[in-house]
Every structure is written in C-alpha cells, then in structure tokens.
C-alpha cells in the first residue's frame, strides 16, 4: 500500500486516460504531461498503461507499507526518502515504512511519481485517471488515502537515469496549427496571436491553461453550435482571452478554436506555471 500523508495542492491518479468515449460525453483525461508520465513508468519497468501519481507544484508526501521501486519525473523538485536525497528521472528503492516527500519544483508545474506495478485502484470506464471536470474516476487524493500497488509491471528497465531536460523556466514557444475556426477572426487578430506575448494565469488547471494578454476579438456576432474539441485547442471565449485546453477539457465547446497546438508541444503547455510567458509560432501540418 501507499498511504498519502500530504497531497500538496493537488495530486491525482493518472494513466493514458479514456480515449474513444467522447461521444458519451467522457473526455480524454489522463496525465497532463504524457511524456513525463510515460518516462516515469518506463524507469520502473511498468506497462505504459500503468497509473502513476500526478502532483501539482510539489508538496506530496507518501508512506510505503512495503518494499517498492519508485521514480519521479516531470517538474524537477527536491526528493527525500526518510530525509535522504534522491534524484529525479532515476529509479530508487523505498523500504517498507519509509516516506517519500517532494518539495517545490524549480521549474514546471507537474511531477509524476511512478511505482513498479502501478497504482492498483479499480479502473472506471477503462481508466484509473481522475477527470477533474466531469468527476469520472477516483477522487483527488486526500491525506489518509491508502492506494494499492498494482500488477502492471513489464520487464525491468535497463536504464538507471534518463537525461531529460527539465521544463524551461523562461518564455515558452508553442507551435500552433491555425483552425478550425480561424475564420472567426480578422487577419490582424490572427497575426496578434503569433506576435503578442501571453501570460499563464493562476486560475489554470487540468482543464486548461488560461492566458492573459491582448484580447482576440471575434469578427462575427452569431452563436457557434457546440462542436467537438481536442487537447491543445486554443479556444477564444467572448472575453477574447485564450484558453489552451489540457487533458480534462470539455468534449464539446461553443466558442471558436483559433488554432491547435502541435501535439509534441502539449506536454510543454501542461508544465507552464502561472506567470510564465508564452509566444505562439504558426506551424503548418503536412497534409
């Protein structure tokens, strides 16, 4: 078992989410930064479908009631195991009764703690992910929650440390493919998206990264019938302040989507911290 001593600001269980259920109104969910979650699983020799803990802005403290192999990836934070330092992006062994505590990340927002075997809670609609928007999946973790360790292990990993770059601290550059509703904006407004600087605001969450900056006004005065949306969509509500949809975004939306992030840049957006600035760069997809 893993016992949560402190969850920090927000810790949830996440795996690859619930693709293919959008017609039922169930969103994709899953780890916001898929790349880091996948690395954490790989380091402890788990199947890529295994569930791990996604913790936001550090502060997580967990006690293990049995011997476990653990790895932490994503936003780099100080890690202690019963007061002794451990390293990011490298598996380590935790003995029964020991406590692992994550401090505040130096950059980035979300860190991933994987344990060999995965988090073994009962899946809901095929996934163990918590969807904070729809409420599907296990609740966010609270102090005292006890989690079983699962059996989603594969062959042992052969790496001892993964040399990955931490999430960048300064201005982020995100590549964006125009559309599907770029025709709701004048050419000048479209230009504004890629020339202006936007700042991530504090009311961002797993649903979306909310941005502050020059307003992107619509050139129409009609109602857009709700339509399906994707992770990475840059949706523009009537305020003109764009929102980047993350893992728990609504399945459909009634506001125009000006552009969509290149999928490789979604994990970067998911690590953007409040106050961090973003510039968008126009990108064309080979069709």
């Amino acid at each position, binding site marked *: 078992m893993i016992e949560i001593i402190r969850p920090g600001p927000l810790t949830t269980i996440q795996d690859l989410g619930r693709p293919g259920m959008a017609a039922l109104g169930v969103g994709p969910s899953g780890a916001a930064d898929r790349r880091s979650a996948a690395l954490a699983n790989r380091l402890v020799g788990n199947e890529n479908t295994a569930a791990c803990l996604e913790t936001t802005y550090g502060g997580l403290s967990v006690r293990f009631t049995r011997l476990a192999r653990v790895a932490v990836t994503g936003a780099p934070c100080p890690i202690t195991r019963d007061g002794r330092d451990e390293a990011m992006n490298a598996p380590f062994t935790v003995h029964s009764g020991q406590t692992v505590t994550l401090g505040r990340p130096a950059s980035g927002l979300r860190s991933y703690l994987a344990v060999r075997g995965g988090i073994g809670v009962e899946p809901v609609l095929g996934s163990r992910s918590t969807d904070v928007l729809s*409420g599907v999946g296990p609740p966010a973790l609270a102090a005292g929650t006890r989690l079983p360790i699962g059996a989603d292990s594969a062959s042992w990993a052969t790496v001892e440390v993964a040399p990955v770059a931490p999430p960048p601290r300064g201005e982020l550059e995100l590549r964006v493919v125009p559309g599907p509703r770029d025709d709701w904006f004048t050419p000048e407004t479209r230009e504004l998206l890629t020339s202006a600087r936007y700042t991530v605001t504090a009311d961002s969450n797993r649903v979306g990264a909310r941005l502050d900056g020059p307003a992107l006004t619509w050139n129409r005065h009609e109602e857009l019938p709700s339509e399906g949306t994707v992770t990475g969509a840059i949706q523009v509500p009537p305020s003109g302040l764009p929102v980047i949809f993350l893992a728990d975004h609504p399945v459909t939306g009634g506001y125009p989507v000006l552009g969509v992030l290149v999928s490789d840049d979604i994990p970067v957006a998911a690590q953007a911290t409040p106050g961090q600035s973003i510039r968008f760069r126009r990108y064309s997809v080979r069709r």
Partner: protein
Amino acid sequence: MKIRPCGDQAVLAELNGIDAVLGLYTALRHERPTGIVDLVPAARTLLVRFEPRVISPREVTFFLENTQPSPVDRQPENTVTIPVHYDGADLAEVAERIGTDVTGVIGLHTAADYVVAFGGFAPGFGYLTGLDPRLHLPRRAVPRTRVPVGSVAIAGEYAGVYPRSSPGGWHLLGRTGISLWGTERTPPALLTPGTRVRFEAT
C-alpha cells in the same frame, strides 16, 4: 462537406445539419480505417481524431469525402419515458415568451417524440431532437452557475436533462428523479444516440 484542420491529430468535418452528421457518424462507426481513434458528433460537425503515426490527415480527409452516409440507427424498441415534475425556474418565463401558459408549455413538451442525437456537454447528457418549434428559444443570456441534477431543460432546437449539477444556460422546465449516468452500468449513459425519449408529467 468541408474539412477543417484541427491540429495534427484531428480534422473537423462540417456538414449541412444533424442528419448529415449522424449519417456520416453511423457509417464510420460501422467501418473505418485503422488509426481513427475517436468520433465526436455534434449539431453541424463531426470531429475525427486519428493517430498520426498510423494514418495521415490526407488519408482521413479522402476517406471522409468518399464515405456514403448510412441510415441512422434508430432504436424504436429502446424508448425511455422520463417522469417530470414541472416546477422549473424558467417555466413561467418560457410560457410568457411563447404566448401561452404553464399548462400550454407542459402540453407541448410532453406531446413530442424525441430522439437522442448526440452527447458531449457532460457524461450522460443527450441532445434530444424533436422539440416543438414553438418551444425553440435561444440560450439564456446569462448562464446559471449551478443547475440542479435532473433538471429538464430546453434551448434552441434541443431538449435535455442535466445528468449532474453543473453550470448551464438552458431554460429549466422541471426536474426528474431518474438516473441518467452511472459508471457501474453498461452503457453508463441512459440516453445514447438513437434512443427515443418521451416526457411524462407527474
């Protein structure tokens, strides 16, 4: 059909209306190339998500443009009757706006045969077509921050029932105690596309 780009893992097919959307959706549910991973039907569009390592946007577009729409799966044997206590916060206002009284609104709402067209707003929410055109009203100018679970509501050309408490901009006519969503059931949603629905005053 117009195919709009939607990043590097999806395209948005824009069609003439809900019948065309559901025809294409039904055809793709029956047969589609490997690599198409999710379909989201909506009022005028079908979002098609794909795995770019398996299929290119060009192939997806070509397939969509060359797919014959299928007849929509109607499920006449699958009729759900939803008992409604008509005491909604907007009942009187709706009656006034369409020039009738509360009994008139209830009569129009219970007389129609509805069919679930698509979902998407929330797990278990179904957009029901078949609403009497006299009840077609735009969404409320200011949405409510909290609509109670089981609220029976209308907006535009659609009727619906809120499966859980949530923000919402529809006009509230009444409430039902019926459960619309449960992850322990298969399927978890009571109202799936094609289900016929009737409302009954209690």
